[in-house]
């Protein structure tokens, strides 16, 4: 999380709302461990990562949706999940990502 603080600071200073996505669990092979963090500003700027690049696009969409709804959400991306397979987690693992507004 430390590596994205500067970006959060910059966005918050500009009055932009921020969503935060954190890997809370990995089953099988996954590119990043639990704790990997990505942040998304309300206008779609991104810092950090939660995978090797496979699911970042989907996480950005979830992050923007969560800023709309204001409700935290756990998203699961994995080989067995058709939608996630479409976004391409090719390593065969499953990652669970908590996406929420950074309003805490």
């Amino acid at each position, binding site marked *: 999380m430390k590596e994205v*603080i500067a970006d959060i600071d910059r966005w918050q200073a500009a009055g932009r709302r921020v969503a935060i996505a954190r890997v809370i669990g990995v089953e099988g092979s996954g590119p990043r461990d639990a704790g990997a963090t990505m942040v998304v500003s309300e206008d779609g700027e991104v810092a950090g990562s939660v995978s090797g690049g496979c699911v970042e696009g989907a996480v950005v969409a979830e992050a923007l949706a969560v800023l709309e709804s204001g409700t935290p959400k756990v998203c699961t991306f994995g080989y067995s999940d058709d939608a996630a397979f479409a976004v391409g987690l090719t390593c065969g693992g499953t990652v669970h990502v908590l996406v929420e507004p950074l309003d805490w």
Partner: protein
Amino acid sequence: MFLWNRSTGDQRGQLVSGELYRELRSALLGDEPVVLATVTSVEGEAQRHTALAAKLVVRPDRRCLGTLGDPELDRIATRDALAALDRGVMVTRHYGPHGEARRAEVSVFLEVFAPPARLVVFGAVDFTRALVEVGKVLGFEVTVCDPRPVFATRARFPLADEVAVEWPDRYLDRLGPQLGPRDAVCVLTHDTKFDVPAILGALRTRVGYLGAMGSRRTHERRWLRLVEAGADEAELKERLMSPIGLDIGARTPEETAVAICAEIIAVRTGRAEGLVTPLRSAAGAIHGS
């Protein structure tokens, strides 16, 4: 503001938006240890007081900010957060609605932000320079300690965070209590008058990795001296990685540093006696085909 604990109206209600993040941010920027506990799933009656994404920020002195929604759950999660911090590992724990064991209505992700683990190298020899460099690559806070001022100099170990001109046992008397399961002590002097006090001193700490360099002959002689000096043989067998390093055929100081650091990782992750072979578990020559 999103208030996960509005229903119970307890202390969480006094927090203003951004307060937990500010606490976390200041700990991270100050390299202070901290754990962020977050509810990642909640079922059944627990939903009456706990919500998804409820948070508790835990400091090592048990100072907490926020709540998971229940005081008992907070207490148990704080205990587990501190244990996770000690080991430096991220973990998800499962509890009953009030922190009960062997239940799983509430899952809590304990995100550990630990300051760098420490690597203490005794002996300011040529292998030490390479070990300092590889240790820095892995993110260790590195100390070189040797009682000989000619060898223990900043100029020889520019990447070390600390160069201590001190006897190993004195250094460990002073700073040993700070060492924990994530930290490593490497004894590279292969001179029994330095090795033995360094190893004995390190055994009195909670350090997670303890390795000592030397040929198989040096190792055998050193083992006898350690036992003569009162070391418990069972404890030596359990804790002392000697000869130090994984059996990857390392030869140069740089290769040896990689073999040592790989063993430190393997011990930390519990693989040392399984998928990889530490030199101490292999027979035969350390060098050569």
